[in-house]
């Protein structure tokens, strides 16, 4: 069985890409917060990617990825009409969504894509969703208009101030929390330092804060423990107990260290891949 790519959209050239994949059984069961594990070849590594959107009727699942190493670089070479050999999902516990009032969804970088699906879920439940998204500059902002279609408020922060607030999403978040005391939950998805910073900001306000942990995974179904994280002093498996956890109790320092476990091998793998690409181009 293979999984055809029905649509490819380059969101940021050379960096971020959206793929719409034909996978009816995944689409049928996918909920916000779920992820898939895919491989790019029969020699590929199993890599997890969050489900950014799904269409059960059409039987499609969207993923958005940032090119950071060999597997994502190889994934970026796939074009419309080509098929992925492996695409497994939906995995992980879905986001806990209940009717609760106003929810702030914070997304940074590629994390905005994953956050989009969760925000959509909250909106569908009837919650008031405030989206806060950030990027280095306005050209790198993702899902701004999509979020605008169901969020009454989309607040933007860019490092260079090319659009929205000049600075970090956490500053916008803090201001919003100061203005409005009725926020029932903050959801933050993005790079680890961003999620950690968000959790730090919300802590004094006592607002429930959910983060999604992108630990290194192998099987994604709880059989290896590669993805273990410390949450509230206990070891949890991000793939089956999460990936979403209470941001105020996550040991982010440990997560950061563990994410670097295989750095030398990752660099070796990427260098080899780039070398092969160059050779293929005749350079």
């Amino acid at each position: 069985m293979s999984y055809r790519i029905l649509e490819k959209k380059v969101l940021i050239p050379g960096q971020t890409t959206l793929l719409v994949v034909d996978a009816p059984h995944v689409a049928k069961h996918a909920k916000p917060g779920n992820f898939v594990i895919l491989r790019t070849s029969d020699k590929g590594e199993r890599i997890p990617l969050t489900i950014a959107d799904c269409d059960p009727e059409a039987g499609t699942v969207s993923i958005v990825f940032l090119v950071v190493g060999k597997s994502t670089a190889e994934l970026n070479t796939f074009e419309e009409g080509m098929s992925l050999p492996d695409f497994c999902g939906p995995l992980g516990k879905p986001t806990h969504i209940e009717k609760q009032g106003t929810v702030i969804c914070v997304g940074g970088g590629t994390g905005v894509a994953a956050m989009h699906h969760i925000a959509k879920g909250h909106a569908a439940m009837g919650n008031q969703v405030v989206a806060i998204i950030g990027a280095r500059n306005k050209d790198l902002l993702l899902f701004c208009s999509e979020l605008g279609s169901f969020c009454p408020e989309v607040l933007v922060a860019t490092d260079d101030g090319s659009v929205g607030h000049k600075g970090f999403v956490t500053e916008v978040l803090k201001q919003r929390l100061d203005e409005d005391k009725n926020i029932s939950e903050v959801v933050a998805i993005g790079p680890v330092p961003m999620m950690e910073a968000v959790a730090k900001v919300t802590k004094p306000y006592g607002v429930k804060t959910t983060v999604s942990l992108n630990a290194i995974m192998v099987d994604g179904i709880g059989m290896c423990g590669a993805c273990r994280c410390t949450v509230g002093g206990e070891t949890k498996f991000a793939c089956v107990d999460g990936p979403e956890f209470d941001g105020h109790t996550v040991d982010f320092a440990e997560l950061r260290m563990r994410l670097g476990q295989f750095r030398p091998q990752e660099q070796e793998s990427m260098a080899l891949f780039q070398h092969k690409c160059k050779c293929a181009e005749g350079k």
Partner: protein
Amino acid sequence: MSESSLKAAKRPRTDMPTQPPMERIRNYLEVALGYTEADAMAEAGRCIQCKKPLCRKGCPVEIDIKGFIGQLQKGDLPGAYKVLRDYNSLPAVCGRVCPQETQCEGECILGKNPEKTGGPVAIGRLERYVADTFAARLAAGDSACIQLTGEAACRMERPELRVACIGGGPASLTVAGYLAALGIKVTVYEALHEVGGVLVYGIPEFRLPKDIVRREIDAMKALGVEFKTNWVGGKAITVQELFEEGYKAVFIGVGAGLPQFLKVPGENSIGVFSANEYLTRVNLGRAYDFPNHDTPIFKADNVAVIGAGNVAMDAARTALRLGAKTVSIVYRRTKDEMPARHEELEHAIEEGVVLRCLCGPMECLADENKRLTGLKVQKMCLGEPDASGRRRPVAIEGETEVIPVELAVIAVGTRPNPILLEATKGLKLNKWGYIEADAETGETSIHNVFAGGDIVTGAATVISAMGAGRKSAKEIAKRLLGMDL
């Protein structure tokens, strides 16, 4: 025992040719090379064809061992294969991985007085010989049926009779092969990207070449079994949906794959792995062939493996092959209590694995970057026997030691994976979280839903998983075809 039969048996067991230890730790190829025809005939000749064969009682699925060895003595290889296949769906696998010393060979009459008789008949090695040689002699045009059953032709396909298996390990594969040979259409849903269960992701290539598992799976495919990989039961499809889609019965064989950790400080340090992760990266991910394959593996000069079962031996020997200079097995009890197969333990020692017995892990020590630097252990001694009859390890107050290692692999057992179980309403579990299944049929608390293998018994053996699969397959065939098998 008559005079002549004693003479036949007096020769010692025929040795298994192996790759020399110092050579084999530099490759990932199979260690035991298999009997030649002459070896096999010599060893088969040792069997005295007992009137009341004890070996059979030692076999969890009561293979007619005397029967298959008898056929071999007569030079009838297809006949020997047919006998094995009547009981065992995976003889090439079981011949390699069964703990024969505690099963058939442990009961064999010739083992009762080894000085006089030369020791028990090497039943496992003969089983492997028959399965491998039979498969090697199959011609391209031979039907898959003969490989799966030893019989020339299987039944006509009955596409309206559909059965689903969840999990693709030995339990499910047995169900699939058995039912397919009866013409029933089977679909296997496997969560990982390859089928085979532990045979593929756990047991290393040097002990069980993956081609052997593939050969079985290819034969099943040829008989119409459909394999759906990357499908997680309970996530991508539920048991109820399977029935809605028209399946008449469902077999659950999802194994007991959830790794247990030690719950000691420092266990999440970089360099501490569960055996499942370590072995899955290497075997399923082919990390021994990195960067040719993409999955990376953590390399270290000094390695400790905690535990002393087959899983621990596999991890220790894998670490050696990945270039480790010292590999220790750290175990609370002594060598005599080690649960691993004899052969694996012997092979591990030959290859240079150090046994550190009577050591209980206390803490994983790490540097400021959270990288493992050592394993602190509590020295133990053996005290009074516990409920299992084994002498209980007792801590020697104040005596600890630090084993300097950069990689620690934890192989202290597994638990059931709850994903499918939690998603299946009405499925009754026992107090340890395993599925409750009828001892005779394998049926669970849900009508026409069966279960077998590690998900029912807890981590056990390939042969017991296979035996359970066979029981359920017979019951399913009986219900679907109305036949008593």
